């Protein structure tokens, strides 16, 4: 049984084919890296999975559920979390409150009105703070964090949401080499209990993840395999280096 199943998905924007008969299968517990040049359709693929964009045709299934019929909150509640390319956290709220809002659980407005912070929630937040190394910053306003810290906070919010599948869009953009390696480690850690799809440009990072790689080009899969296999693939080299 597949966790995520995309079959010949196509998306067109004003005549531009962002996704062209894209097919992709993810097994439960798997971590997959998606690479590809700009405009290859990586972010559009994420948009289709999370309900932001409706495909023109094709099937998108999460286990048995047809994702093309659901909107973003329903898909999120189903167990698919997403980290954006540009870190988006709730800048006016403290780091701790950002995590609190992300925690799996109450979502209806009136339930939120009467919600009290439970000790379980407190414990979970402390745990995530420790995992993302944000404990010393818990009381700070999220908007005051550095770029790398915001990336980590957003990953922390994904952990709070505790989705079955995490979609992570360019998690190491703008990070130092050391941070990049720590993030790879963190994702490998997360992968022990979650399935993960990572979109990334940084080949060093992808190498550090050590997982199966899918190369997208012009909205379709160009190659699939280990980092070594795909980087030896002449078509991949051509797409990345030549024109």
């Amino acid at each position: 049984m597949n966790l995520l199943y995309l079959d010949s998905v196509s998306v067109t924007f004003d005549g531009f084919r962002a996704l062209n008969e894209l097919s992709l299968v993810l097994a439960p517990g798997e971590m997959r890296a998606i690479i590809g040049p700009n405009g290859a359709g990586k972010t559009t693929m994420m948009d289709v999975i999370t309900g932001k964009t409706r495909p023109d045709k094709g099937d998108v299934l999460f286990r048995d559920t047809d994702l093309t019929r659901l909107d973003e909150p329903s898909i999120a509640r189903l167990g698919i979390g997403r980290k954006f390319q540009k870190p988006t956290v709730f800048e006016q709220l403290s780091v701790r409150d950002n995590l609190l809002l992300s925690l799996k659980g109450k979502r209806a407005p009136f339930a939120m009105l009467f919600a009290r912070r439970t000790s379980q929630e407190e414990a979970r937040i402390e745990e995530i703070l420790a995992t993302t190394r944000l404990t010393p910053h818990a009381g700070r306003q999220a908007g005051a964090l550095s770029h790398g810290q915001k990336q980590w906070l957003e990953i922390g919010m994904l952990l709070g949401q505790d989705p079955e599948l995490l979609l992570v869009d360019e998690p190491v953009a703008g990070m130092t080499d050391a941070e990049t390696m720590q993030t790879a480690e963190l994702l490998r850690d997360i992968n022990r209990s979650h399935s993960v799809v990572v979109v990334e440009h940084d080949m060093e990072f992808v190498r550090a993840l050590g997982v199966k790689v899918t190369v997208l080009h012009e909205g379709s899969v160009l190659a699939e395999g280990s980092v070594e296999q795909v980087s030896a693939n002449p078509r991949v080299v051509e797409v990345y280096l030549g024109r």
Partner: protein
Amino acid sequence: MKRDISAPDWCALAVAAGALVLALLSLLPADGALHVPAFAVGLAGKYLAYALLALSVNLVWGFAGILTLGHAAFFALGGYTMGMYLMREIGSRGVYANPDLPDFMVFLSWDHLPWYWYGFAHLPFALLMALLVPAALAGAFGWLAFRSRVSGVYLSIITQALTYALMLAFFRNDMGFGGNNGLTDFKDVAGFDLHQPSTRAGLLMLTALVLAGCLVLSRMILDSRLGQLLVAVRDAESRTRFIGYRPEHVKLVIWVFSALVAGLGGALYVTQVGIINPGEFAPGNSIEAVIWVAVGGRGTLWGPVLGALLVNLGKTLFTGLLPELWLYALGALFILTTLFLPRGLAGLRRPPALVAEITPVDSEAPP
């Protein structure tokens, strides 16, 4: 997060205490040095009703990022429901002495009361309607607008259209709300003569208490997790969607609550001002309310209350002295506030809420 008494609560206390002092002073003998004349009590009551409108605009603009340019519609609807009660309360003391029909209906040669006037002879019913009618309109409008993800300037324009359409509708005589003249000539409320200083003092106190109550209630909502979610939706709406929230529901809740507050304000306004007409729906009124909020400082609960009181006090004084210049002054006030006091008067007191909690840690990368 625990504080002793928060700023909104202080504001609520100050409003209630101020109104109590004014009300008591107005009941002193008229020749006493401390006597407050009746018109001042009426003005204060009007300002406090406006402050309720300001609070209501601020709830959606300051905390949910929805710039409403039509909130006076909810205020006026609350006012009309109260006006309908006050009309029925006149009974046979009207010019035409018709015990069932308000004067304007007799004048239009109507022979019976339209069905939507039924029940308005009773104050509790009218009060219920002062809440329900604005809430129902806000609910229907908000549900459609937020569900379709209409936001920003487009939403602002639709709110303007909403209040403008209501204004045109209420101008029509056959709507049954007194047309151009609206509802006026009220005699008494719940058996108390509206022209008695004691009634006016009582109404001022009541308005102050309602405002104080709404302030405290709003503070409780904003302190709750829903309040945090509201700020989250304001600042990063799509992010909240991807963690499973429905921002349209969150907005709808605060939008309807805000309309309730505006409706209450309108109902209290009419009892003290003595008239409600379609002019209250004029788009300019809603925009003025936005200016009070901007001047006072949106995003704090007490700022806009202060803004409404000060700007309206200014308006009263200014229109007395230099009536033709008032609109220029109001416009200038808005521009100057936007340029030099983007956080309004409240911004003079302290930086925005959470900045104060930031601990001075270097913005180093995660170790």
